[in-house]
């Protein structure tokens, strides 16, 4: 899926959060949005995943404005996008059922009701739990193939986030939207997720990622977009943005110089 932001703005009441953002993500491309907290990264990602409607401008999926479509047509587009949040937000059930939830909601209600009946019968007959092939494959991609029958509540933070990633992968989305998925993870779990992102790119998924980790952005991105106070300051190939930024504000940010008002900090 090709995702395009055309001079997109978004605000709530009188507060502007994003202003005239233009950005694109192609198939098999990793685009990373960097920027300080409060820059509007999460809002941009929520717009990309069709959670929110722009207040001005257009978000296009394969050339189509989803917000001009019917609810069902937009749902079909939304189902081609997988989103991973900063917090894992797993459901209170087994790992397998967390991961295959995307497939289950795509089934017709009659099939879901039959499956519910079977599950109740299994429970009373004390049959063992089962796992869907695609869910298992997604779990294997994040190194948790043997954890499918565990309770989601028993996972560590890193494992939970990897399950959350597998949940998005299991629906085989064309575009992955990842909101700081490794911000709470240790280096090992971060490496596992980065490898999974690489694999997703190799399979032709587009990836739109937000991160605070400059090294990560440099490591895994094809292109980088620097967002500051709701405006896209600079976009370009990762190597160029990090080695030779065109805007002074980008240069200061990637160097690690804080973008703050020193007087405000000392007050």
């Amino acid at each position: 899926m090709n995702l395009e932001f055309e001079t997109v703005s978004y605000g709530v009441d009188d507060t502007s959060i994003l202003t005239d953002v233009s950005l694109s993500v192609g198939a098999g491309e990793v685009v990373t949005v960097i920027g300080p907290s409060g820059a509007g990264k999460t809002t941009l990602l929520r717009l990309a995943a069709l959670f929110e409607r722009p207040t001005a401008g257009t978000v296009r999926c394969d050339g189509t404005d989803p917000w001009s479509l019917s609810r069902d047509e937009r749902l079909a587009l939304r189902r081609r996008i997988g989103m991973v949040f900063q917090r894992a937000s797993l459901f209170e059930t087994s790992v397998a059922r967390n991961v295959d939830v995307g497939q289950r909601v795509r089934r017709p209600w009659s099939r879901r009701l039959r499956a519910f009946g079977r599950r109740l019968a299994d429970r009373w007959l004390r049959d063992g739990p089962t796992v869907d092939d695609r869910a298992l494959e997604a779990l294997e991609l994040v190194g948790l193939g043997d954890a499918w029958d565990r309770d989601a509540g028993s996972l560590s933070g890193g494992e939970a986030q990897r399950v959350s990633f597998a949940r998005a992968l299991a629906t085989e989305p064309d575009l992955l939207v990842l909101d700081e998925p490794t911000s709470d993870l240790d280096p090992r779990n971060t490496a596992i997720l980065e490898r999974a992102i690489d694999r997703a790119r190799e399979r032709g998924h587009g990836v739109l990622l937000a991160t605070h980790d400059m090294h990560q952005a440099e490591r895994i991105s094809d292109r980088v977009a620097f967002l500051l106070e709701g405006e896209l300051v600079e976009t370009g190939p990762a190597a160029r943005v990090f080695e030779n930024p065109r805007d002074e504000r980008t240069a200061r940010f990637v160097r690690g110089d804080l973008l703050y008002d020193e007087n405000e900090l000392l007050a």
Partner: protein
Amino acid sequence: MPLDALSDPTYLRSIIRLSLTVSLVAVLVSTVLSLPIAFAVGFADFRGKRFVTAVINTGMGFPSVVVGLLVWYVLSNQGPLGTLNLIYTPEAMIVSQCVLAAPVITGVALSAVESVDDAVRDAAYGVGGTRADVALITLKEARYGVITGILAGFGRAISEVGSVLIVGGNIAYADGTSKTRTLTTAIQFEVRKGEFEVALILGAVLLVLVLLVNGLVLRLGGR
């Protein structure tokens, strides 16, 4: 013999049967009415939401005698629904128990639904869920709170004395079996006769019944 009242098992059986039937039907009807309201209020953002929530919470503390009086007025022969001839019947007791149990179930279920993290709803939406899927997943996440609400409603219904006494009348047939006599009104009746042992035994039966129903519902709920 003070325990003569319990020597005939049909008396006790009829009281237990009526208590359970009235309370379970009242809780079932209340649940069917309450859960959609709890969901609608819990999911929607609208002007006056806090007022509606306050009204529901106030309903949780309705004095049962006042509810009994109101239901009695509505169902009595001179009342607006007097033609239905429901006063002093188990149906009238179900109505009054519904009025008492519904706000409890709605209030606790609403609180459970609202306590489900927005991030969980986002996750349900993010995997491609429709609004119905998000609602269903939220209900599953809130299930223990919803079950607690239903149990609290059942507790309120089966332990009710004041309103069922007013609208039911604590009537027994000539053969001693119950028409509108429940465990609670029977306890009150026995105490007034000075039959404390019988009242205590009926109290113990009531406690065991509540324990059994709670245990069964929790088991079905997977806890």
